[in-house]
C-alpha cells in the first residue's frame, strides 16, 4: 500500500508541477497579503466596502457589472452593508423598467432586486464611447484573467512611461503587466482620488488592493461559504477514512492476507 501511495504522490507531483509551469507567466506580478487566500480565507469587510466605493466612483463610469445585484451588497460573506445602506445605494440609481400599462418604458429608483445599472446600453455603445475598446464587464473579471487577483492588483499600478523607441498610438497606454504591454485604459488611480468614509488613506496601492478584493468577491460571492464548507468536508472525510481503514483492517484480519 505504501508503494501505491508513493507512486500516486509522485504522479500528482509531476502533474501539479506541469500545471504550475503552464500557468507560469513571464512577468512577475506584484503580490500582497490577500485576506481571502488560504484554508480559512475570508474577505476583509472594510476592503470590500472601500472597494465598492472605488468601483462606484471610478470604474463604474465605464465598466458594467451586470451579474451583481444591489441585494448582494447586504448579503453575508460580502461587503455586508446594512439592509438600509444597500437600499439607499440601490435607490440612488435610475433603473429602466416597464413597459407600463400604456406600453411605455419608464424609470424608477433602483430596488435591492435590481442588477447593477450598466454605464452603457449595450456592448456596442460601450465600444463607441471608448474608442473601439470594450471595457470588460467586471462581474467575473478576476476569474477571467490568468493571473487572477495579483494580475488586476499589478495592472492598476503598472502604468509607466513606454521604453525608449516604443511609440504608442492615440488612446493607447503603456502598462508593464498588460499582455503585450499596450492597454487602452489610461491610468485611473492617483493618490487621494477617493475619500474613504472610514478614514483610510487612499493611496494608489490601497485603492488597488481594495478594488481587487471587491472584484474577487463579485467573481466568487460564495468564497467564504466555500472555504468553511471545504474545511468541514475534508475533516469529515479524514475521520470517515480513518474509521473505514480500521474497519477494513478488522475485516481483512479474518483471512491471512495483507490488505
Amino acid at each position, binding site marked *: 500500500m505504501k508503494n501505491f*501511495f*508513493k507512486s500516486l504522490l509522485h*504522479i500528482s507531483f509531476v502533474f501539479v508541477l506541469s500545471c504550475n509551469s503552464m500557468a507560469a507567466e513571464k512577468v512577475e506580478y506584484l503580490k500582497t497579503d490577500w485576506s481571502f487566500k488560504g484554508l480559512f480565507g475570508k474577505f476583509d469587510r472594510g476592503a470590500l466596502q472601500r472597494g465598492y466605493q472605488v468601483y462606484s466612483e471610478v470604474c463604474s463610469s465605464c465598466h458594467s457589472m451586470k451579474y451583481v445585484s444591489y441585494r448582494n451588497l447586504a448579503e453575508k460573506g460580502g461587503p455586508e452593508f446594512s439592509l438600509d445602506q444597500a437600499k439607499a445605494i440601490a435607490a440612488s440609481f435610475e433603473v429602466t423598467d416597464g413597459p407600463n400599462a400604456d406600453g411605455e418604458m419608464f424609470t424608477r429608483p433602483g430596488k435591492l432586486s435590481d442588477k447593477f445599472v450598466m454605464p452603457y446600453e449595450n456592448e456596442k455603445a460601450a465600444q463607441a464611447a471608448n474608442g473601439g475598446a470594450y471595457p470588460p464587464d467586471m462581474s467575473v473579471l478576476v*476569474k477571467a484573467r490568468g493571473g487572477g487577483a495579483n494580475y488586476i492588483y499589478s495592472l492598476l499600478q503598472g502604468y509607466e512611461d513606454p521604453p525608449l523607441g516604443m511609440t504608442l498610438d492615440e488612446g493607447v497606454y503603456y502598462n508593464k503587466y498588460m499582455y503585450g504591454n499596450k492597454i487602452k485604459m489610461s491610468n485611473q488611480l492617483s493618490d487621494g482620488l477617493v475619500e474613504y468614509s472610514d478614514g483610510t488613506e487612499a493611496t494608489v496601492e490601497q485603492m488597488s488592493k481594495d478594488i481587487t478584493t471587491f472584484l474577487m468577491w463579485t467573481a466568487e460571492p460564495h468564497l467564504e461559504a*466555500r472555504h468553511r464548507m471545504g474545511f468541514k468536508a*475534508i475533516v469529515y*472525510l479524514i475521520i470517515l477514512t480513518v474509521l*473505514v481503514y480500521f474497519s477494513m483492517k478488522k475485516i481483512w484480519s479474518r483471512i491471512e*492476507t495483507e490488505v
Partner: protein
Amino acid sequence: MSDHEYTPQSKAGKWFNDRLPLLTLANHLTDYPTPKNLNYWWTFGGILTFCLITQIVTGLTLAMHYIAHADMAFESVEHIMRDVNYGWLIRYIHANGASMFFLAVYIHIFRSLFYGSYKAPREIIWIIGIIIYLLMMAAAFMGYVLPWGQMSFWGATVITNLFSAIPFVGEGIVTWLWGGYSVDNPTLTRFFTLHYLIPFLILGLVVLHIWALHVPGNNNPVGIDIQKPSKDTVPFHPYIVIKDGFALLMFMIVFAFFVFYTPNILGHADNYIEANPMVTPAHIVPEWYLLPFYAILRSVPDKLLGVIAMLSAIFILAALPWLDTSKIRSAVFRPLYKQFYWILVADVLILGYVGAMPAEGLYLLIARVATAYYFIHFLVILPVLGFKEKTLPVPLSITEPVLGGSPNLAMAKNKESLTK
C-alpha cells in the same frame, strides 16, 4: 452468472425471485469471488463508478437551471454560481468531477496496460472500455462548450473543424454539425442534448463492462488464471467493498480539495469571458486530459494526416489485445516490458506537457519524437517483445508463489522505478 444455485430464504423472496431473479443477481454480486491479492490500482473501477454517478447526479441538477441558448447560457451559469441554492457547489463538483473522472480513467487504463488485463479472455471488456473512454471524451468536450465562454466557443470551433479534414465531404459535415455557417445557437442546443444523452450511454456500457468482467473474473497482479471460488479468492462483499470504499474516500479527499480550494485551477481563465465570435483567445488549449492527443494532432504538419494520427492514437488501443503477442499477462514477470511500460508512461506525460506549449521550435520537435514513439511502442515494440522477451517464472497460484517472496514483494520492487 451461474456460479452456484441460490434460493432466497423467505417465501416472498422466493416468489419474487422466481419471477425476476434480482436476488440471484444481488447474491452473485456480493459473493462474486475476487482475487484476494488485488492491489489499490484495482480500486479505480469502483472510483470510476462513483465518478459517473456523481457526474450524472450533479449534471441533472445543473440541467434544471442551465439555459441552452447562446444569449443566455453564460448568464445562466452565473445565475447558478450566484443565486441557486448550493449552485456553486454543484457546478464546481461537476466541473472538477470531469477532471477527476479522467484522472481515474487514466490510472485505470494504465493499470490494465501494466498487468495485461486486456489480454484473452478479457478483450471484450477492454474494447468496451475504449468505447466508454471515447464517449467520455465526447461528453467532456461538449460539456465544456455549454458555459459558452471563450474557450467553449473556440474549442468547439477548432474541434468541429477537425472534420473538415475529411476529403470531399468534410465541409458539408462541419456545416451539418454546426447547423449553420459557424458555431452558434443550433450547435449549442444539440451539444446540450448530446451531453445529456452520452452519460446514460456510458452507464449502459458500464453494465456491459462489468458483465463481461464477471464472466472470466478479475485479472490480478500475478496475472494467472485462478480457480474460483478458492483459497485465492475472497467474496466481493465485504472484503473488496470495504477496500474500494477506503480508496474512494482517499480519492474524495483529493476531489474535495480541488472543489473547495482551487476550483478553477484545472479550467481556463478565458472561459469566464463570454463567447465572442470576433476574437480568438491568445492561447487555445484543450482541457488537460485531452492534451496528449492534441500534441499528436499538432505534431503532424498535414491537416488530414494530423486528424488521422490523433484518432489512430486512440483506436490503436482497441487492437492492443492482438498487438501484444506475449503469453504472460503481468508486467511483474516481464522485465523488458516493464521498462518499456514506464517509457510509455513518460512518453504520454511528455505529450501532455508539449500539448500545452506553443507548437513551435523545440516543443514541436519533442512532440514529433514522442508521437513517433507512441506508435512505435504499440506497433513495433509490443509485437516483437512477445517473441524476444525472456520472462520470469510465473507462480501457479496466488497463495503459493513459487518465487522467493510473495508477488506483492515483487510488485513493491517495481514501484521503486517510479520514484526515480
